[in-house]
């Protein structure tokens, strides 16, 4: 089965609301990206240097990052040569294939590490305003819908209104929030939350933390301490450390991923705000350079606006029109 057929069958297997939602959220992303791709293919008949330069620009325009893009272009050039592709139309599937492969590098598991027998503890980390608290709210909702008992820990004791914000989500979703006063030690909140969640027999504990810029050494140390306290109480916890990245962020997201990974051994990424026009191309760079899998995507501010990340879906979303065009041509 060719790549597109595989992609297609995968898509038709999943013609449920999930896929629709994902596609809907990605409409903007896809439109502009595919538009550019189409323009590109209309403009250039043959795959030449100029063509690759243009392609490079499109990918850089998607925040994929200069070095990743260069690498990708080199790969493409080589593959195109190897497969003797000269017509720019025929290179579209190759681009798609290589992108998807990069996102699903070494077939890493993009599913969450959920404990079957014990309580699952998930720690959320990231810079200011990326969507940590909101993602926790959405996740609490999704776990609850699976019938799980969820507790949220208000570990952001610093930002004005942070505890209240999580409280609102707690009410909205109908789950308990463990909190202390503003200004208290976040590690102490985590300790409390673990005891409390345990006594409630919770299945999942979602830990919010204050946003912090990765270059603040003291704040990163504080975060290490928070994680240490969790691990001390439950040896293999946190079971996931999710770094929340804002799709609107440019190259700094790489530095964020790097530093947070060093401090807290990030296990996955939640990529938020993909419902905007930002293309989230940084996912490619992060995957390529740091090998951290994207596990979730945020597609809005609502309680349901979150989906598990699917590399093929993601790429399909970006190139939907191209893929369809290709199919039509194949039929003729």
């Amino acid at each position: 089965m060719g790549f597109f057929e595989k992609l297609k069958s995968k898509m038709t297997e999943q013609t449920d609301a999930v896929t629709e939602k994902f596609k809907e959220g990605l409409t903007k992303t896809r439109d502009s990206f595919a538009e550019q791709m189409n323009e590109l293919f209309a403009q250039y008949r043959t795959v030449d240097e100029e063509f690759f330069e243009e392609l490079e620009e499109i990918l850089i325009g998607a925040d994929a990052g200069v070095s990743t893009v260069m690498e990708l272009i080199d790969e493409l050039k080589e593959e195109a040569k190897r497969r003797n592709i000269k017509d720019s139309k025929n290179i579209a599937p190759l681009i798609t294939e290589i992108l998807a492969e990069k996102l699903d590098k070494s077939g890493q598991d993009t599913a969450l590490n959920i404990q079957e027998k014990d309580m699952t503890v998930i720690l959320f980390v990231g810079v200011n305003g990326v969507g940590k608290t909101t993602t926790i709210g959405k996740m609490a909702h999704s776990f609850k819908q699976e019938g799980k008992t969820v507790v949220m820990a208000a570990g952001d004791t610093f930002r004005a209104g942070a505890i209240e914000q999580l409280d609102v989500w707690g009410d909205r979703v109908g789950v308990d929030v463990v909190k202390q006063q503003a200004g208290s030690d976040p590690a102490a909140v985590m300790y409390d939350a673990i005891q409390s969640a345990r006594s409630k027999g919770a299945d999942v504990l979602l830990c919010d933390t204050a946003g912090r810029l990765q270059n603040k050494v003291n704040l990163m140390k504080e975060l290490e301490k928070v994680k240490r306290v969790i691990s001390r109480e439950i040896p293999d916890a946190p079971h996931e450390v999710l770094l929340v990245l804002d799709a609107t962020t440019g190259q700094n997201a790489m530095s964020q991923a790097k530093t947070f990974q060093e401090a807290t051994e990030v296990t996955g990424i939640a990529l938020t705000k993909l419902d905007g026009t930002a293309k989230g191309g940084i996912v490619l760079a992060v995957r390529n350079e740091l090998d951290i899998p994207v596990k979730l995507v945020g597609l809005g501010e609502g309680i349901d606006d979150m989906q598990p990340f699917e590399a093929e879906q993601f790429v399909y979303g970006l190139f939907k029109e191209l893929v369809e065009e290709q199919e039509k041509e194949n039929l003729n």
Partner: protein
Amino acid sequence: MAFEGLAERLQATFDKMKGRGKVSEADVKEMMREVRLALLEADVNFKVVKKFVNRVKERAVGQEVMKSLTPGQQVIKVVNEELTELMGGEQSKIAAAQKAPTVVMLAGLQGAGKTTTVAKVANYLRKHHNRKPLLAAADVYRPAAIDQLETLGKQLNMPVFSLGDQTSPVDIAKGAVEQAKEEHCDYVLIDTAGRLHIDEELMGELQEVKEAVQPDEILLVVDAMTGQDAVNVAESFHEQLGVTGAILTKLDGDTRGGAALSVREVTGVPIKFAGVGEKIAELDVFHPERMASRILGMGDMLSLIEKAQTNVDDERAKQLEKKMRSADLTFDDFLEQLEQVRNMGPLDELLQMMPGANKKAMKNIQVDESQIGRVEAIVRSMTKHEKENPSIMNASRKRRIAKGSGTTIQDVNRLLKQFEDMKKMMKQMTGGQKGKKKGKGGMQLPFMQ
């Protein structure tokens, strides 16, 4: 991270050119490639980069660079000039209406920093202009947005106008202006909900607010870490609202902040302020020329010195500045600096204000605040002679110092190393690298000779 400043990038190009004496058109092309990459890595939008590079190239090919004996300096000079021009002059004035209250509305994407910035601007207006602001809670969507603003209002001891989250933002804005009139507040700062520029309904709502209260100032709040999309966001907000200025937040991070350039290029409005921390006082006047060198990775020495100045008395600040420039720091200065730095915030944060200022050297001098006491003890155990001549330190001296300060020899060694690194870095930042001793006047770029 492949995150070098333009100076380092170009240096490599020149090393290759060395000995050829003359700059060819191909060389210029290669230089422009480096300029392009440096700007792209700094998150300047690629279309903006293209235009920019073309402008620089024109000047480079015609005369200035190719005929110069120091093409490197020339390229940087041209780039810097073009960039500074694009960034515009310093314009961090907030409008003042003929008749109070002046209405200021803040808008932007989700999480950009609007609510925090409302509090910061309010604080600024009171502190520097003796104004009496009223904060208006017109974000009725985000969970606890009103609580957040009210908490900030309490911290500031300033009134916050709110009608809960069941009233329309238009009515809230109108109500706030009314109340400001009654209570003789001279500014109304309207916090609005974060929204996507493509969200027609919510953008329409902002237009209605604008219609209803006719703000004197509409400020677009932009996260400094924004990537390529900054162009779309700024363009779209500007088109739909006619913004009068921008505020760049989270500049205390280590992002290059190329978004600043994109925002300027597509809106033409001035960037008025920079958010440099989470705390209410952490708002800076925006300095275009510093932003230009930050984007190019040239460090931000001037900001650092200014930060020192606001916290340290003038005389001492001048001395500090001089010492930093000349890099003949002694341990006494180091100690004094530590004390001053304590009043300013963590030293590593200060150092981080110098993006691109040799990250490697910087890593070793990150000072953990809890360690400052120990560092102090070590320095205090040194003799006057040792403090002034760190190079005479030998094993027996170190042993004595360790004992005297209740630390270990490793601690002493680490401090000496940090001190040397710091001196080295300052030398590099202040242009001492290439043998030039004291950079008089303007800042010397590491690259210039």
